């Protein structure tokens, strides 16, 4: 059978890409990201690499699609929410320098010819950490349930490192009005630099790291951290897209295909959160992360086809699971709404 129509030529990267895989990755990153509330970009770079994109192209394309996606969510909520713009702008310095550094490391590794394996191994460690975090979280939640402790507000009590950090007295000191604290300007710059390097290196938004850093290390109130992070992701994504394009490592067609898929998927994902109950889905998420990790290792050892099957299979299953939650829940809600309307009519 001639399957050549399933492959699309990418003129810049110069590779033939299995385009249904591209659509699937874009769509599921939307569904999974929308559902779990964290980017989901961690599976795009490995996914694109496994589909056949050279590593540098996978990172550049991923970072550009993050920029687009953050535009989508900004438009959807018509605003960033609560942003401390002063903090945001200060952090931009660190984020942009960090992204540039991350991108420079990638270009350097590319010249050495080791970019593929280095990034893949870093990803394996990174994903292992995420999986550990997810399973630990699940474990803690089930233990609490057993003991009958009701989960209160997930407060920032307990970890108060930021109090120590606020004491660091390197001028200039700066006061952030909306966030309501004063600290050395170097603290947010350093934090954003660290997340920026990682974002530029792995092609992720960095929210996964920046959010906890904002809350625990800088001492930002959670609602302001959410808004400021979104602001940061958008700008850093746009800058990342720009610098990676300037370095010639982006595939525009892939960006658009994935962005479209992600925008549609994200709606399904976010609606599904409304109907999801229990912690079981967390386990599914952890498994998806592990599957992604396994597929990267397979790719590293040149089992390209099995790697593609593992990652595409895993994300398909978890997507179907989330979609089932969403459609079931939505159908229920609409039915109840109808019944309520009929009841009010008969009265």
């Amino acid at each position, binding site marked *: 059978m001639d399957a050549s129509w399933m492959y699309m030529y990418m*003129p810049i990267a110069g590779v033939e890409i299995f385009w249904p895989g591209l659509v699937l990755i874009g769509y599921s990153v939307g569904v999974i990201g929308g559902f779990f509330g964290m980017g989901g970009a961690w599976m795009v770079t490995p996914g694109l690499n496994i589909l056949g994109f050279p590593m540098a192209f996978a990172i550049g394309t991923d970072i550009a699609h993050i920029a687009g996606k953050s535009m989508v969510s900004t*438009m*959807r909520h018509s605003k960033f929410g609560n942003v401390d713009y002063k903090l945001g702008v200060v952090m931009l310095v660190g984020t942009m320098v960090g992204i540039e550094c991350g991108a420079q*490391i990638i270009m*350097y590794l590319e010249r050495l010819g080791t970019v593929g394996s280095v990034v893949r191994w870093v990803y394996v460690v990174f994903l292992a950490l995420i999986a550990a975090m997810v399973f630990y979280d699940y474990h803690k939640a089930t233990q609490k349930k057993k003991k009958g402790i009701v989960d209160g507000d997930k407060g920032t009590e307990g970890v108060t490192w930021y109090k120590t950090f606020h004491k660091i007295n390197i001028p200039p000191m700066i006061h952030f009005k909306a966030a309501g604290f004063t600290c050395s300007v170097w603290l947010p710059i350093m934090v954003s630099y660290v997340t920026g390097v990682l974002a530029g290196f792995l092609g992720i938004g960095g929210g996964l790291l920046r959010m906890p850093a904002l809350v625990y290390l800088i001492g930002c109130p959670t609602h302001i951290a*959410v808004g400021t992070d979104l602001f940061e992701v958008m700008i850093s994504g746009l800058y990342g897209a720009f610098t990676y394009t300037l370095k010639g490592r982006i595939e525009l067609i892939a960006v658009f295909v994935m962005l479209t898929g992600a925008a549609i998927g994200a*709606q399904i994902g976010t609606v599904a959160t409304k109907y999801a109950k229990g912690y079981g889905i967390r386990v599914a998420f952890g498994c998806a992360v592990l599957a992604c990790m396994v597929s990267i290792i397979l790719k590293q050892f040149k089992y390209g086809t099995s790697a593609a099957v593992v990652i595409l299979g895993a994300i398909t299953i978890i997507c179907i699971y989330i979609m089932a939650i969403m459609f079931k829940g939505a159908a229920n809600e609409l039915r109840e*709404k109808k019944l309520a309307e009929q009841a009010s009519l008969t009265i």
Partner: protein
Amino acid sequence: MKSLVWRISSFLLMAYLLIPTGAWAAGGPASMLVVVADTRRVSLAVEKYFSNLYNTNILLFAVWAVVLTAAWGCILGVVMDFIMARTGLDLKSRKIVEH
């Protein structure tokens, strides 16, 4: 014990911060990779325009890429808002799940 952990973690942090600078300073023993988009293999006019732009004026290409990505993101956001408002689902009272 605590001071040891502190020392190790601060060392790791320093190493992490210095690696990029090192990579930058190292410049390049190996030469840069240059990519030429193969415009002979694309037939679509838009694709041809952009791959040609990639070869001849990468700065303009980068500006286009950022502007188009941002614009397409905005358009998708508005369209999705429009569609989701018409499903009849109550999307306002949902609890925001933060991670």
